[in-house]
């Protein structure tokens, strides 16, 4: 087991190097630091000197891969690649283009993101699994038929409308909770209800339909027929046999997104003014802060890879038939 995990981790290294190279090429080769400086300072009335200053302040004045002016080891370390890209491997994100420490910002902002994402995920799972199981119980009837159509209709609504509609209906018309904002500690609760609710409703369509398919696949298997022929009631079959076996694909599907919960939701956090990593990323995109976007790309990829490894491990934990080798 541990040998397998170590091998999986080792396998992740070339992928991380690949991601690092892609971001490096995207951010420093395709567009030179000069272009970035011009973009930030405006292309008119900008002198060479200003550009040079802008680059020096942020450490973009170094050569890309090899510094001929330095000797020995410094020729490799005094470069943009080493200073900006290679350091990402040890999670040293450096400072943003506006001078703030990115690592510190991330450690501060991931908590609101988690506070939003975890309840959304858990309650959402509970709701959608219940719904899907109910639909599976009524399979082949009109309830099933219309439930699937409603699911398709729910999928067809853009997530933007869920947020806007929810804000309008609950925040503005009914005035139950504030429309947006955030607070520390328990006071945050009243700000969290609406985004969590919208997150759950927004996911109902696709997840319920997906889980229903999983349940139906499971229901047609031989062991379920055996259970029925033993004379077990339909409810017992569904809860005891089908649900437990169907949870394997459902939960392993959830594991892969677990690490990504840190990253938060771009849209929801932005709409509700929650100071999480999602709104951090959006702000960076709007301010065109390349350092932050670069850091978030790398962080997101690392978390995704962790999720993949966790998925593999969780398969072996829940399904003893799968051996890792």
């Amino acid at each position, binding site marked *: 087991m541990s040998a397998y995990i170590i091998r999986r981790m080792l396998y992740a290294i070339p992928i991380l190097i690949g991601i690092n190279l892609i971001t490096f090429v995207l951010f420093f080769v*395709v567009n030179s630091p000069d272009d970035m400086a*011009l973009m930030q300072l405006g292309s008119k009335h900008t002198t060479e000197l200003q550009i040079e200053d802008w680059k020096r302040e942020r450490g973009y004045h170094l050569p890309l891969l090899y510094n001929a002016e330095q000797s020995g080891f410094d020729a490799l370390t005094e470069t943009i690649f080493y200073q900006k890209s290679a350091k990402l491997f040890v999670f040293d994100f450096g400072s943003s283009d506006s001078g703030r420490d990115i690592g510190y910002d991330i450690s501060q902002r991931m908590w609101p993101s988690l506070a939003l994402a975890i309840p959304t995920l858990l309650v959402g799972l509970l709701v959608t699994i219940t719904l899907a199981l109910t639909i599976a119980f009524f399979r082949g009837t009109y309830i099933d038929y219309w439930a699937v159509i409603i699911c398709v*209709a729910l999928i*067809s609504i*853009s997530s*933007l409308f869920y947020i806007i509609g929810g804000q309008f209906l609950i925040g503005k018309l009914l005035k139950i909770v504030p429309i947006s904002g955030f607070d520390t500690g328990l006071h945050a609760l009243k700000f969290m209800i609406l985004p969590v609710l919208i997150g759950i409703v927004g996911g109902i369509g696709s997840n319920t339909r997906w889980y229903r398919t999983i349940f139906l696949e499971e229901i047609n298997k031989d062991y379920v027929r055996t259970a029925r022929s033993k004379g077990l009631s339909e409810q017992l079959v569904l809860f005891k046999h089908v649900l437990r076996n169907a949870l394997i694909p459902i939960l392993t599907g959830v594991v892969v997104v677990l690490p990504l919960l840190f990253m938060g939701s771009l849209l929801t956090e932005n709409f509700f003014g929650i100071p999480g990593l999602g709104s951090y*990323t959006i702000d960076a*995109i709007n301010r065109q802060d390349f350092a932050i976007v670069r850091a978030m790309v790398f962080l997101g990829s690392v978390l995704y890879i962790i999720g993949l490894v966790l998925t593999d491990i969780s398969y072996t934990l829940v399904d003893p038939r799968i051996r890792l080798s």
Partner: protein
Amino acid sequence: MSMQPTFLITDLLFFALTIGLIAFVFMVRKRPHLSRPWSQVLKSTTGSVSLMILLFYYAIALIDSMHFHPRVAQATESQYQYSSEVHSLLDVLMAPMRSRMEKTFSAPLATHSFSKEMMQGEEGQLQRDYPRLNYGGAHLTQPEEQKAADIISVSLQASAQALFYWALIWLFILWLYSQRNNQSLVTLLANVLRAKTTYPLRAIAMTSAILMLLTVVSMQLGQHYHLFGTDKVGQDVFYQAVKSVRTGILIGVLTTLITLPLAILLGALAGFFRGWVDDVIQYIYTTLNSIPHVLLIAAAVLLLQVYMSGHADDFDSLTERADLRLLFLCLILGITSWTGLCRLLRAETFKLREMEYIQAAEAFGVSKFKILMRHVMPNFMHIVIISVVLDFSGLVLAEAVLSYINIGVDPSMNSWGNMINQARLEMARDPIVWWSLSAAFVFMFTLVLFANLFADVVRDALDPRVVRGEQ
């Protein structure tokens, strides 16, 4: 010629794709084993109704892709001057809606502006009141009393017109159909009414009636009113929503054009050759897939913005620049979305490779390239088609989200995402400005819903794993 045709890059790609689609339809029709699942799609009511609505959207996008420079002045006897602006055929059809600008917001079908303004009263005194619109209901002398009656009479006339032409067209179609099948027109009509035809003709006819009614009524009302009101700068919202159709459709189909070659080629190669080829291709798609897609798109679009602000002189017009950005967006969306299909195709090729007929082909000494083209690719095409149809709606939705975070299409381009983005700022107003949002919602929801329904039918028909028949 009162115009000078011009072709944007996306137009050309779109036309090429359309021709390709038509060729595909003809190819399928000739081969019974390919046309069987498709005729099953058409026989299902959901399938043919959704297809019809999708084609309607597609037609709007196609009309909106025929661009030209309008003529502005006659320089000499045979030489004309052409405007640098780019118009499309759709702009001509919707000319009144495009050109009639109000000052600012106005509600749907309104005759008065949405906000009060300082005006000179009848006796010359200054007062704050809602001013009349420049165009919306300008032909009415007493808007308060006449408006409702006018709208009803225009809609009724338009509906009558639409239904008349609809009936004529359908009688002709049914007459042709009855001639071909040696049926009397009356029995055919009776069958259609009782929904007893092989293809769901009744549903198709009803869908076409609804589409025709909506088109004619909205065009007629649009002559004198702003059907969905006007936005902040006074532009007709209905016009914007219709213009956005092209953006949505293009994002959906052009991305596919970029995804398919990558996914098919790499997937087939990886599954067929295995070994180091497989390792390399797997490495590429795992790496690409690990990067959160939104962030990769954001990074790429930011870099494009940097490039465009640095090379502003390279573009002849704003339209051309926006067009290039749309193409780039399709490109980057394609790069992020080929990995899923590639993985499926790789696995399928793995399976196909072990089939006897491929081993037989190998034993006969057929070259590897030929085996791939002749024996492997045609046998996984159903996966390709299913995935294309399934992905389409997701791409349309993605456009809106990306435009909302400002990494979508150019802000000057009409798109549902941009409409939502602009309208969101007006949410805080009281009374609320709801029409831009609603228009974008209605147009987008219809397209995505029927694309999803169609995708489901296509998947059921093409996927051999789905067990058909009565349950």
